[in-house]
């Protein structure tokens, strides 16, 4: 299934749109595997190489901090995934896609997220700029999948799909920057990991 999602996403979109329960079920099972990849890679990378912010020596965190960071990372991904599906469900009424099932939307967003989850292998070497370089193309790939697939799955004209996709991109940017702000605020209040010097 992972190969189909990466190799021929269009046919997967069409099968999701036609309500093919076998494909929808398979994609949903894939979700649990994919969404765990980034935190696991981050945990391994920070254990082996430390975090490299760009200046001086890498930062190493103690074992508890690494587990907590990975745990919250997984939480943020799951929360982001579910909230994006629910928001898309809510937006569907405005863009004429009210007949789409929630299961189909869960499956659709798994396909969209797949390139980012796979590219999170870059976390194995947690150098910020290296990760930025690897994740930007995967992000652009995911955005392309969103724009291409949404009208197919929602069974709406491409123009309406373009409007809804743009609204969702707006939501995702806001969600990401919220996470950035929340992390910064927590760090300021001392709720952050302990660095091993």
């Amino acid at each position, binding site marked *: 299934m992972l190969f189909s999602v990466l190799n021929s996403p269009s046919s997967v979109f069409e099968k999701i749109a036609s309500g093919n329960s076998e494909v929808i079920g398979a994609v949903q099972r894939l979700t649990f595997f994919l969404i765990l990849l980034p935190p696991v890679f981050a945990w391994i990378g920070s254990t082996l190489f430390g975090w490299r*912010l*760009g*200046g*001086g020596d890498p*930062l190493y965190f103690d074992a508890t901090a690494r587990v907590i960071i990975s745990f919250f990372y997984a939480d943020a991904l799951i929360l982001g995934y579910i909230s994006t599906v629910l928001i898309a469900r809510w937006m569907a009424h*405005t*863009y004429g896609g009210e007949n789409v099932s929630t299961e189909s939307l869960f499956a659709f967003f798994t396909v969209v997220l797949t390139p980012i989850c796979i590219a999170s292998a870059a976390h194995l070497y947690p150098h*910020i*700029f290296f990760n*930025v*370089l690897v994740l*930007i193309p995967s*992000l*652009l790939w995911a955005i392309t999948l969103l724009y291409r697939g949404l009208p197919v799955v929602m069974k709406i*004209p491409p*123009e*309406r799909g*373009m*409007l809804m996709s*743009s*609204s969702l*991109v*707006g939501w995702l*940017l*806001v969600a990401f*920057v*919220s996470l*950035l*702000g929340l992390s*910064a*605020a927590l*760090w*300021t*209040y001392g709720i952050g990991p302990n*660095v091993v*010097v």
Partner: protein
Amino acid sequence: MNLETREVYHDGVVKRLVQFSILWAVVGMLVGVYLAAELLWPGLDFGQYWLSFGRIRPLHTNGIIFGFGVSALMATAFYSVQRTSNVPLFMPRLAWITCYGWQVVVLFGGLSLLAGWTSTKEYAELEWPFDIAITILWVCFAVVFFGTIANRRIKNIYVSNWFYGGLIIVIAMLHIFNNLAIPVTIDKSYSIYAGAQDAIIQWWYGHNAVGFLLTGGFLGMVYYFLPKQANQPIWSYRLSVVSFWAFTYTYIWAGPHHLHYNSIPEWVQSLGMVMSLILLAPSWATMINGIMTVSKAWRKLTVDPALKFIVLALAFYGLATFEGPMMAIRSVNIISHFTDWTIGHVHSGALGWNAMITYGTFYFMVPRMMGKPLHSVRLANIHFWLALTGTILYVIAMWGAGVSQGLLWLSMDDLGELSYSFTDVMASMVPYYALRLIAGLIFLTGTILMAYNLLRTMYGLHTVTVVPPDVIDEIKGTAHNPNAVMGGEVTA
């Protein structure tokens, strides 16, 4: 009434302002790209003072804000106020004087910055002779705009005019009070404010220049051109008026968030922070109003490249107006302030919101003014993708750089000493700055494509003659029908 005395909209001045705006967009962004290159290769100043970062950085900001931005705002204000008031411009010669006078100030003001004349106040660097010239020209702008509204034949003042009017009044107030200074020589003056008061006045100006010019003025653009492009009425007119007053009341208090952890009273900082957070409500009300209006016009997307820019501009408007209040929270600001996160935030607004909405408006307005289709829809579509890619790359590069800087600067060792020196941190920024340079080049390429496309559309043509359409004169209660006399055809 004969043909010489007939009433027609004055679009010639609008066309000229659009041309100047495009020129300053290309020049301003080119300077921005040069600056980005200088941060990678400092030797690019070739030892010349006038090419140093400190001199050309204000040239970039002033060129974009006052050259590109204000010229676009004047053009769109003149275009829309005639149509929403159903009368030609009041004192059209004064409108031409404003148009050319403004360009002279931008040109010579820019050269004065290169020569090292500066008041050192951000976005208000121009010295006192230019400040006086700006005041006079701004009053001319106000006379033309409000004179047209005073002559209107439509009883209600349409919401876009409230935003343009707010822009004109508030910017006049901010400009005059922030630039009160004692001139010493032709190129040097000293502010009448000192210390913390100077800082508070400066950021009262600085933030509200962002608020009423780069946000409020461009919202005026949205409220006229979005319904026109979408061929739909605004989703909720009531919401637009409520958001105008909420926006105007709230924005003016938000300036102190630029001075967190500075030597101004803490309660002033907290006030600025709280007002910034409240500001999210009117900002997002407008975004929702825009998105709901455009959601009904999806059929036009295939034929109208302008609408794509508007949709994207609304998304980035949502991002920037959410990110701004969040960065105004003191505990976030301690990490983000003095880092490239701020630069990223500014550019998500400047590129994603201001430039995109202006591009969309120009793609709408120019073919209608010239009476011929856009030279190339394909080029406009390529421009759209270049603009989107450039903006996203820019913002991501600056987010990465900013968060790294914030965290590295706050890192301390066991003895409480800074773990990293300033030079260490800046040296690690090279990859991000390279990415920013690429992003800037991509965005600039798109702007040059637009300049070519629009100038080809305008080449060798005069604006079409447009007469105010036949309406009942709601102010005087009499029928007004200029077309009956001259038999003109309404084309816009």
